[in-house]
Every structure is written in structure tokens, then in C-alpha cells.
């Protein structure tokens, strides 16, 4: 075992052409990840023609690295412009963008880049540890548990918008939940609130909603306010010392980093739970476990670390069912699975018995790829961060074009541009009125998941599904969380400690 493990690492780093391919994959993955709307899924689909001629190991390492580092660079636009690349990154904008506004873009980037690298590595470690117990763990989660995990995520709204904003937060959250019912009804198969508009049959496009809720309002307010994103001038703000202080935030919050990475990896492991669930659940967890939750939304560094560790940690996790069951853990992995088949990798139980060396190579590729990505980003982010000091009036038109393209590319439906405009008006209204916007995304992301799995669980077991052992554990977690939220919101004489989310 140990021999295979390190033999694989040695083979990986001592083969120049594989390392070269990995470097190309990291750079391409990072570049693609910067564009909002172009996820890992699309980048792999575009890269598949290139791997036809490669041998099995090189091709697999290339594609996996390309996919794994994709999320790492998405955080740059989230932090600097408040533009999330997708649903996962939306959680990073909540605290990342306020930090950039305070002129601390470098600190936020240092922390988030390091966090995602560490998250990716911990995800790979979880992968390695989980190999022997994979099957029983994955089989424990059924639609009943999917429903309760989605509900757990939704209950975090109570922490994201507590205090004086609790009512607004609930309204916005329910609004997101209502919109998540647009599309095919999973019970009757009839379109709901979609009529003849086929583009709505699969629900409201998440990328469109996220861009409209977060990116466009921030850009509009920047354009009307004038000045640059950062309130602090360039020469005072960016320094490598600040970047380093951001990097050091990760070891300072090591316990949070480990928890959120592991949560991310485990959520990634379970097919059927969306990737965005991981980032939001971990963000909620960071707020809920913090001694000073009032800082969140205004630039708490933990609010950047938690979702980034989670979204990179889940890559290691989602590779597990893909390789060992042939069942992809995420949509990106579904594409990767197709590519693996092209390369002649036949996923299944035989991966452990016959191809353990390949499995280890892939684990190491995750680790090394993440390290290279962290290195490249830490060195290059200085030039990117400069953009936050450019006058907003120059920047805004370009970014809005960027957002529009991202929105179109993700689903290739022109109608989504109309949705983008409508939601942007709504998002801007929320922002001007000081209403929280993150509960909206949580409602939209988790609502559909909750509904579909509730329906399946009821079909399978009726109401007795609530009595399944793991269901009981999850229910008690939800009840405990709600009780804690009540306690924190309504404890006498402490009302000033309530969370004021500005995002």
C-alpha cells in the first residue's frame, strides 16, 4: 500500500511530459475558471478532443487537474468584483467583496487561494482514507437524507440573516424557494409557471440568478457611486505583506479549515447532492460556529475560507463514486467520466484491485495540481488585484459584458438574458433597500433538491422515512440549529450582537 502510494507520486513528478501537461492543465483551468458561467464541466467537454491521442495516465491527470483547479480561480472575480462564477462562488462573495472594498483584496485573495489549495489537498486525503469504507458510507445516504440535508442548508438562513433582518431574510429565502418551483413538476411531470417557455422547464438558470443577484447590483452601485472598488488607495493597500497575512489566516483557522474541507469532501462524495450545497453549508457552518457572527457579510476572513475549502475539498470527494461505481458525484464528474472511458479507464470495483496505482496517481495529481495552482495565483494575483483600484466607471462596462456573456454561455438560451435583466432589477432593489440576498440563492439552490428528494422519500417509505436512523440524526441537527438560532436572536440584552448582513 505505502509502496504503491509513494511510487505513484514518484512516477508522477519524475515524468516530465506528465508534469508539463499538468502545468498546461493548471494554467488553462485557472484561465477558464476566471470567466463566470464557464464551469469545470464545459472546460472538460472542450478539452476532450485533445486527450484522444494521450495515454491513459497522462490524459486522466490532465483532465482531472483541469477540472480541479477550475474552482480555484473563480474566487478571484468573486472577491474583487463580487461576481461569482457559479453557485459555489456566490458564498465567497459575501465576505470577499466587502474585504476588497476595504482595500484588503490581497488579504482576502491570500486567504482564499491558500484555503482552496489546502481544501483540495484535504479532499484528496479524505479520498484516500475513504477508499476502504466508501461503499457503506455512500449507501447510507438515500433520498430521505438528501431531503434532510437540503433542509439543514435552508435552515442556515436563520444564521445568515438574523437579528433585525430575520424577517427580511425569511421573506427573501422563501422568495428563492418559490422560484425554485419553476420548471417541471417532479410529481406530475407538468411544467409549472413555465407554460410554453421551454427554457424554464429545467428551472431558473442558477448562474443567471446568481449573477443577477450579486454581480449586477454591485456593478450598478459602483457605477453610480463612482470611484474604484477599493476605498483605500493603491499604494497603501496592496502589499505582499498583506497577501502573506491572508495566507497566514488559513493556519490560524486550522480547525475550521479541516472541518469545512471534510464536510465538502463528504458532500462531494454523495451523488445527488449538488456541489453548491457544500459551499453554502460550510459558509453557514462558519457563521453559526463563530463567536462573533456579526462580522460576517462585512468582511470576515472565515467567510472566505469556509466556502473555498469546501468547494475544492468536494473535488476529491466527488472523484470517489465516479471511479469506483462509475456514478459521477457532480455534473463536472459526469463529463470527466465520459472522458475516462475514452482513455480506456473502466470505472468500477476493479479500480482498487487492479488499478490502485492509477488511483494514487490521480490523488497525487489533485494534491500537486492544487499546489501549483496556489503558487501561480499567489504570484500573479498582484496584477489582478490592481483592477480593484481602477476607476469603476472604466471597469463596469467591461464587467457587465463579461457577466452577460457568462450568463449566455452557461445555458445558450437568449431568454436567460431577459431573466438576467429582470432579476438584476430585483437584486439592485434588494441591495438599495438593504435586504440580504444570500437567502435567495440558498432557497433557489436547495429548494428544488428538497422537493424532488422529499417526493422520492415519500414514494418509497411514506412518512416513516423520518424514522430512519440517519434521518433522526439529521433531524436532531436541524432542531438543535433552530433552537440555537432562536437563543442567539432572542436572548435578552444581547440584541446588539445580531448579524447584520450587507450582502
Amino acid at each position: 500500500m505505502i509502496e504503491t502510494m509513494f511510487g505513484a507520486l514518484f512516477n508522477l513528478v519524475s515524468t516530465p511530459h506528465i508534469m508539463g501537461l499538468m502545468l498546461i492543465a493548471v494554467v488553462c483551468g485557472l484561465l477558464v475558471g476566471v470567466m463566470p458561467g464557464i464551469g469545470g464541466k464545459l472546460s472538460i467537454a472542450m478539452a476532450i478532443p485533445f486527450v484522444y491521442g494521450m495515454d491513459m495516465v497522462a490524459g486522466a491527470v490532465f483532465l482531472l487537474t483541469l477540472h480541479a483547479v477550475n474552482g480555484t480561480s473563480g474566487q478571484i472575480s468573486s472577491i474583487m468584483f463580487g461576481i461569482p462564477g457559479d453557485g459555489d462562488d456566490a458564498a465567497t462573495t459575501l465576505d470577499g467583496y466587502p474585504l476588497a472594498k476595504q482595500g484588503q483584496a490581497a488579504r482576502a485573495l491570500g486567504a482564499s487561494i491558500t484555503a482552496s489549495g489546502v481544501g483540495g489537498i484535504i479532499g484528496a486525503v479524505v479520498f484516500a482514507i475513504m477508499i476502504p469504507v466508501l461503499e457503506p458510507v455512500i449507501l447510507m445516504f438515500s433520498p430521505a437524507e438528501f431531503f434532510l440535508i437540503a433542509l439543514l442548508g435552508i435552515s442556515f438562513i436563520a444564521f445568515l440573516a438574523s437579528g433585525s433582518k430575520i424577517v427580511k431574510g425569511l421573506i427573501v429565502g422563501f422568495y428563492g424557494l418559490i422560484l425554485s418551483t419553476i420548471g417541471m413538476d417532479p410529481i406530475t411531470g407538468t411544467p409549472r409557471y413555465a407554460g410554453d417557455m421551454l427554457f424554464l422547464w429545467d428551472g431558473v438558470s442558477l448562474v443567471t440568478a446568481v449573477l443577477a443577484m450579486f454581480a449586477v447590483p454591485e456593478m450598478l452601485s459602483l457605477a453610480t457611486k463612482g470611484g474604484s472598488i477599493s476605498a483605500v488607495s493603491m499604494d497603501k493597500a496592496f502589499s505582499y505583506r498583506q497577501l502573506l497575512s491572508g495566507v497566514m489566516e488559513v493556519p490560524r483557522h486550522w480547525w475550521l479549515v479541516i472541518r469545512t474541507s471534510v464536510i465538502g469532501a463528504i458532500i462531494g462524495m454523495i451523488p445527488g447532492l449538488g456541489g453548491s450545497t457544500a459551499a453554502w453549508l460550510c459558509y453557514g457552518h462558519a457563521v453559526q460556529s463563530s463567536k462573533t457572527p456579526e462580522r460576517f457579510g462585512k468582511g470576515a476572513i472565515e467567510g472566505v475560507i469556509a466556502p473555498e475549502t469546501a468547494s475544492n475539498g468536494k473535488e476529491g470527494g466527488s472523484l470517489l463514486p465516479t471511479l469506483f461505481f462509475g456514478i459521477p458525484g457532480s455534473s463536472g464528474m459526469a463529463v470527466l467520466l465520459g472522458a475516462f472511458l475514452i482513455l480506456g479507464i473502466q470505472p468500477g470495483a476493479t479500480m482498487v484491485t487492479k488499478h490502485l496505482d492509477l488511483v494514487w496517481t490521480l490523488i497525487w495529481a489533485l494534491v500537486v495540481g492544487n499546489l501549483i495552482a496556489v503558487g501561480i495565483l499567489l504570484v500573479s494575483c498582484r496584477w489582478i488585484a490592481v483592477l480593484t483600484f481602477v476607476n469603476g466607471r472604466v471597469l463596469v462596462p467591461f464587467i457587465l459584458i463579461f457577466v452577460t456573456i457568462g450568463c449566455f454561455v452557461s445555458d445558450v438560451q437568449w431568454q436567460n438574458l431577459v431573466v438576467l435583466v429582470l432579476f438584476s432589477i430585483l437584486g439592485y432593489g434588494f441591495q438599495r433597500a438593504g435586504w440580504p440576498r444570500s437567502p435567495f440563492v440558498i432557497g433557489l439552490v436547495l429548494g428544488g433538491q428538497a422537493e424532488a428528494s422529499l417526493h422520492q422519500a415519500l414514494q418509497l417509505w411514506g412518512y416513516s422515512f423520518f424514522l430512519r436512523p440517519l434521518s433522526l440524526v439529521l433531524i436532531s441537527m436541524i432542531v438543535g440549529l433552530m433552537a440555537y438560532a432562536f437563543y442567539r436572536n432572542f436572548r435578552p440584552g444581547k440584541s446588539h450582537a445580531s448579524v447584520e448582513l450587507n450582502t
Partner: protein
Amino acid sequence: MNMHSIRKAVAGAATFAAIAATPAMAQEGADFFNGKTVNYIVATAPGGGYDTNARLVAEFMQKYLPGSTFVVQNMPGAGHLIGANYVYASEPDGLTFGTFNTGLIYGQLAGDPAIKFDLGNMSWIGKVASDPRVMVVTKDSGIDSFEQLAASKEPVKFASAGVGSASTIETTMLVKALNLPVEIISGYNGGDDQLAMRRGEVQGIIASRSSFQDFVNEGNAKIIAQIGGSETDVPQLSALVGDKPDAQKVIALVASQSNISRLTAGPAGIPEDRLKALRDAYAKATTDPEFLKKAESLGLPVDPKVGDDVATVVKAALDQTPEIVSVLQETLKKD
């Protein structure tokens, strides 16, 4: 060298290649594609069987239509309806065609108002695969044969994809027509159905053989009946249900579907010579040794048919008796 002469040179070379490769009849049609961009529409998101197959077909059709450039465009959504409607509504100039789920035929038969196409009128280019359906039950279900399933006192739970998907329609139709003690649990997408069977929350499924062969080989489940296909290792469902005309008709409908999987079709009215060129290119593409090798490594079953052969099957499948249509409408009825 100006653009004109470059074009001439390219055209000349392409024509030469075309003469060498194709019979004189398709000349004119094949020439048309020289220097043109062809949009190949895929009605699903990137990744997955349809997309992989489409990219492979496009790559090799381009090889056999000299001078053409194939662009694969994904147009996912609404259970392949967006892509199929788009293909049907596009200009019939031979430059736009694509692939979508054959299962849309059920919706057309039942008169789904969202369907804006007529499969019988489409310009059929070809199909790559036959994908016979199988009835699979898990090892833990204790069921060993179709007879045992049919005689089960307790309802047996079968997984299916989303409501309205071809998988759910086929399962519902068969369960109704054969009067099986099966309860259908819908909403399992992608590989979720196999996980659900491993977890034991469902005991069976009616699905395509290619997607369940490995699952069965690994010892998780057993195939108890098959619809369509030429394999002889499992009994055909039609031989198991006896002389029930309605059941036989439903089985025949599903079987005809399974024979035209991974199709390529364009809008009605593509000019005859261009369609001929496309079909010729398709025939060469799907028999290219390199294509076959890649398809095999991808686990894509290959059993190609070209042009009119496919159109005949589709038209035959669309010609259903009012009883079957009402069974379908009943199945698709929104309750």
C-alpha cells in the same frame, strides 16, 4: 495568392478527394459542403452518452465531407424538446441537423402540445445504435424470473427517471399493459438508479441494456427479460407475456424505439442531393474502423442504419392504433 485562387485550390483538392471517395451521384451534394460550416445540435448538456456519441459522429462525418467544418452545439433542456424543436425549425439547407432522444416519439403520438415537430417528416440521416431494453431486478429482491415478478403478491418497486422522460413512459406503459405488480418510483437521474438499487430502496428497473450490462456483470442484479436486440442470453419479453394483443403492441412499440437509438436527423425538406451526401458521409463515418474503435472504448453500442431505413422504422412506429395512442395518453396524463 488571392483568396479566390486559394478557394479554388482548396475546392479542387476537395473535389478530387470527393471523386476518389464517393460515387459520382453524390458529387453535387458533397461539393455543396465544401467550405461550409455545419451545426450539429445535441439536445443534451455536454457529457454523457448522447453528447459523446454526437461528437464522435460529427468528427467522422466531417472527415467524409471534405472541406466542411462541423460545430457541435449543445442545446439542452426540457427533456430534449428544445434541441429537437430547434432542429425542426431550422433552415432545411443541410447545414443544421442533430441528435435527440428517440423517446420523443411517445410525446408526438400522445399529441404533446410542446412538440413543434413531426418525426415522420424529418430528413433522417441515420442512427448509430440499437439499444435493447432490459428488465433488471436486484439480487436482494429474491426474484429470479419474469414469471416470479408477475406473480409477486407485494408490489415491487421499480426506479425510473423523471416523470415525462422516455424511461418513465416506457416503464409505465409496460407495467400497465402487462398488468405487473410494480410500483414506479420516478426521479432517479443519471446513475442514481443504480445507487438506489444498491441501497435496496428499489428492486428493479426497465432500462437500456448498455447502461446496465456492467452493473449486472458485477453481480448486483439479474436481467430477467429483454425487448428488442439480437442477444439470445435472456428471453424476449414478447415471448413471456403470451397472447395478449395490447401487451404485444406496447412491447413492439418499445422494441421499435430501441432499434433507432442515437439518431441523426435534420429538418424536413433538405434538398435530395445534399441529403444523399449527408447519408453517404454518415454511412462511411459509422463504418470507419477508427470510429468503431473509439465507440468501443466508450462503450457505445454500434449498429448503424442509414437514411430511408431509419425513416421507415420511424414512420412505422408513428402508425399506432387508437388503443395504443390512448394507452400513451393515459400514461402521459397529468394527474
